[in-house]
């Protein structure tokens, strides 16, 4: 370790630590690394500022506009960047709208039920395949992985679901996409890593596989389970295409994303006629603040859950399973 101490630094040696640099502070620059140049730091800072702005500024504009009075919107000539007369008018209007209210209910319902179904199926399957040398696990694993590469595609799936009577049914929005093999593989790789000693001990105490899953494996892999639940939940919250396929005309069953699409389409004449039923519910264009309020409404649940999950993303959740 003496090497560390003898490295000459260009501008002074005041911060050279005695111990290996890493142990001093987590964010400390290692002693062997050159001090940063001003230009380099500035360029880096600007790059990150730019990257952050690209993500944050549009969201900021959307939120501010949704909270602006009609006067502020008129003064700004459209979207509002600096708050100038704020009101919750758009939100109370939106929540009074029966379409939005039922869509909100539908979205939460689908997300909740879908996530529970997906998690139950995936956790069981992942554990079922995670025990080394169990009967048939190789065959079953192949059966799963093949579906990641080979699929019947849109039309055969559509024909199967409608053939089973799924048209216009709630289950058509959940069951066909309830299983994500990728998620199962992620869970499985974590469950395989559960301490074998712990499991053997439980087995000697007479615990069966159900008991082991519930009392040992699940509690020791809370983080990954939570992240996978988030993935599923976000997937259900964001889905709209299956609605378009299986219940395009039944506006009472539309989730929020589909309503957002219609509001956008009405507001800006953008994706005019994705379906015949479009644009017939309310003919007039929704005010800008109201449209932005709907955008915010689809965002808020994500933003509420996100901070709880964010810390788990770094734990290598994805990388373990990419090799499948």
């Amino acid at each position, binding site marked *: 370790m003496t090497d560390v101490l003898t490295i000459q630094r260009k501008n002074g040696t005041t911060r050279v630590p005695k111990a290996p640099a890493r142990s001093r502070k987590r964010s400390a620059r290692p002693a062997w690394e050159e001090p940063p140049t001003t230009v380099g730091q500035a360029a880096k800072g600007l790059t990150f500022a730019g990257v952050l702005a690209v993500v944050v500024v549009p969201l900021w504009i959307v939120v501010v506009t949704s909270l602006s009075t009609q006067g502020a919107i008129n003064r700004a000539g459209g979207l509002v960047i600096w708050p100038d007369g704020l009101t919750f008018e758009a939100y109370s209007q939106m929540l009074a709208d029966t379409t939005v209210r039922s869509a909100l209910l539908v979205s939460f319902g689908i997300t909740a039920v879908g996530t529970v179904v997906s998690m139950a199926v995936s956790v069981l399957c992942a554990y079922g395949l995670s025990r080394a040398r169990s009967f048939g696990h190789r065959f079953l694993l192949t*059966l799963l992985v093949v579906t990641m590469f080979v699929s019947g595609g849109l039309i055969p799936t559509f024909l199967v679901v409608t053939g089973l009577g799924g048209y216009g049914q709630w289950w058509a929005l959940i069951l066909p996409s309830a299983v994500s093999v990728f998620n199962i593989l992620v869970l499985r790789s974590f469950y395989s890593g559960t301490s074998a000693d712990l499991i053997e001990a439980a087995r000697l105490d007479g615990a069966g596989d159900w008991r082991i899953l519930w009392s040992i494996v699940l509690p020791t892999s809370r983080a990954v389970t939570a992240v996978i639940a988030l993935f599923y939940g976000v997937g259900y919250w964001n889905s709209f295409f299956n609605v378009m396929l299986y219940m395009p005309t039944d506006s009472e069953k539309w989730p929020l994303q589909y309503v957002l699409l219609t509001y956008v389409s009405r507001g800006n004449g953008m994706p005019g006629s994705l379906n015949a039923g479009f644009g017939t519910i309310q003919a007039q264009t929704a005010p800008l603040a109201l449209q932005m309020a709907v955008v915010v409404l689809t965002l808020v649940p994500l933003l509420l859950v996100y901070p709880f999950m964010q810390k788990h993303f770094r734990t290598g959740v994805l990388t373990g399973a990419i090799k499948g």
Partner: protein
Amino acid sequence: MSTAVPRRAAAPSRRNWRFRLRRDRSLLLMTLPAVVLLIVFNYVPLSGLVTAFQEYDPLVGVRYSEWVGLDQFSRLFTDPLFWGSLKNTLYLSFVQLILFFPIPIALALLLNTVLSERLRNFIQSVVYLPHFFSWVLAVTIFQQMLGGAGALNQFLRGHDLGTWDVMTDPGTFALLVTSQAIWKEAGWGIIVFLAALAAINTEQYEAAAVDGAGRFRRMWHITLPGLRGVIMLMLVLRLGNALTVGFEQFLIQRDAVGHDAADVLDTFSFYYGIATGNYSYGAAAGLFKSVISLLLIWGANRLAHAFGEDGLYRK
């Protein structure tokens, strides 16, 4: 001891499969729901691909529909709309490969030089966020920023610079959808590269620095070789998915920009298959895409193996 032999440790070889079946019956039961769902919604549709060789009639079902051999395919290959979608798909894939692919790598390298853990976490949580947005939301936000009534044109009008409705301009559509993809997914894409960077042994850097290697030589000789495997893997995945450029993204924007620019293979199946009731025709297009995609994955893997990397699966 004889009564408490650990069940799994004592597993006899495959000869005794009855014993293993009995022993693992609860494990098998656990996989059952997932397996059933996959069979019903993945394997049964796979067999439904036979409709590509039929003139499928919803009234009589797959079993009694008329067989037409390769008619759907010969129709497909003489359809200018199909070739247009194929051309768009390949072009968009190429643009994405050039513009999108390097960004997560560059961002990850840059982020890796940020020493403050707090700052790093903050940047990560912001750039990951758009990944969790739906395409409807992402396109809405782009529409609000770049569309005819959006922030960009508000600014242009305010300064008498004319207007440019980016959202409906077919000429720049490839750039638009690529920027959308970058905005939504590039941040999330750094996660695998960060993991690979974290796996590089820091003692190597220290040794190199002591030996007088500067910042860029360290990056060239330590960091990039450390990332080689995962870059190759992502490249294989990208090439294998060359015919998949996104579905919902195009579905949402097709009517604004016109089908000439926005039809890709996936939306082709939808618009000329399901939406018009030509199920067999759409299924043929889907089958074509699946077969070519499999070949591409296989080919990309061969390529990775030729470079001495694992790729998606090992040799």
